[in-house]
């Protein structure tokens, strides 16, 4: 592994109902995630994905540098740049920035319909 190496691209298609099980698992029932009408009243086009779901998808993509090792991901920081919505494909990409002391630092981002929804992603992974 060396700087410039790409993380395998991850594509996911969140279905219309995905925010419901995520709300249940994560105990976050903010209506903007599960009630399209409440989301519209809050100025959104419809119900939106949880930011922590988007971060989980980025974590999963970055984790593929150490496949199947639950302890490998040591740090992840992300910026939520735009709303993620159901029923549109999310594409996560990442590039190794540096490798030192057994840790890779990866720059990662997630896009949806050509818009960056998660940017500034930085992951540290034991490799």
């Amino acid at each position, binding site marked *: 592994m060396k700087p410039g190496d790409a993380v395998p691209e991850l594509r*996911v298609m*969140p279905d219309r109902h*995905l925010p419901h*099980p*995520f709300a*249940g*698992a*994560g*105990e*976050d029932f*903010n*209506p*903007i995630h599960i009630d399209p009408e*409440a989301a519209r009243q*809050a100025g959104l086009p419809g119900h939106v994905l949880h*930011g*922590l*779901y988007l*971060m*989980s*998808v980025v*974590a*999963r993509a970055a*984790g593929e540098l150490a496949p*199947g090792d*639950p*302890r490998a*991901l*040591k*740090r*992840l*920081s*992300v*910026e*939520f740049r735009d709303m993620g919505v159901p029923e549109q494909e999310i594409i996560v990409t990442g590039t190794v920035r540096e490798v030192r002391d057994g840790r890779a630092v990866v720059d990662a981002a997630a896009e949806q319909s050509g818009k960056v929804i998660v940017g*500034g992603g930085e992951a540290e992974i034991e490799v």
Partner: protein
Amino acid sequence: MAWCVGARESREKGGRDVSADDGAERIWPPVDYSVGRENIRQFVEASGERRVIYKDSKVSGEAGFRDVVAPPMFAAVYSWRSVRPALADAGIDMTRILHTSQEFVWSEPVCAGDTITTVAELRSRAGSKKASTYVFGTVSHNQEGDEVSRGTWTILVKGG
């Protein structure tokens, strides 16, 4: 001035104000999360994780874990349980928040059967009448006293 109201209510509920020297404006009492296999399974399925190590205790066991191991982002579940009441206690209207950035730093892994205790603190608040940015910090430990993760939650509240 929701902030002042929130601070008073916090003291009444057992929260405490700390001096700026501590690096935190306020710290809330610890919140426990008892991690069950099905909690991990629900999160794993909702987040689209497919690896069997997060679902099968035999596979987790063979990899050296004491029970089903949680994926790192399960931190979002157990630590949110401490942030959510802190937001409400700070007088923040949940319908006007935007989660703008997040960081987790992981140490010991979390397994089914663990009890994770998280302390949330408000590190800073800045803004105007239009919007305020709140930065919350969380530190989570397991029942052995080992740190499992730290979180930094940056939240924008529209309307101040």
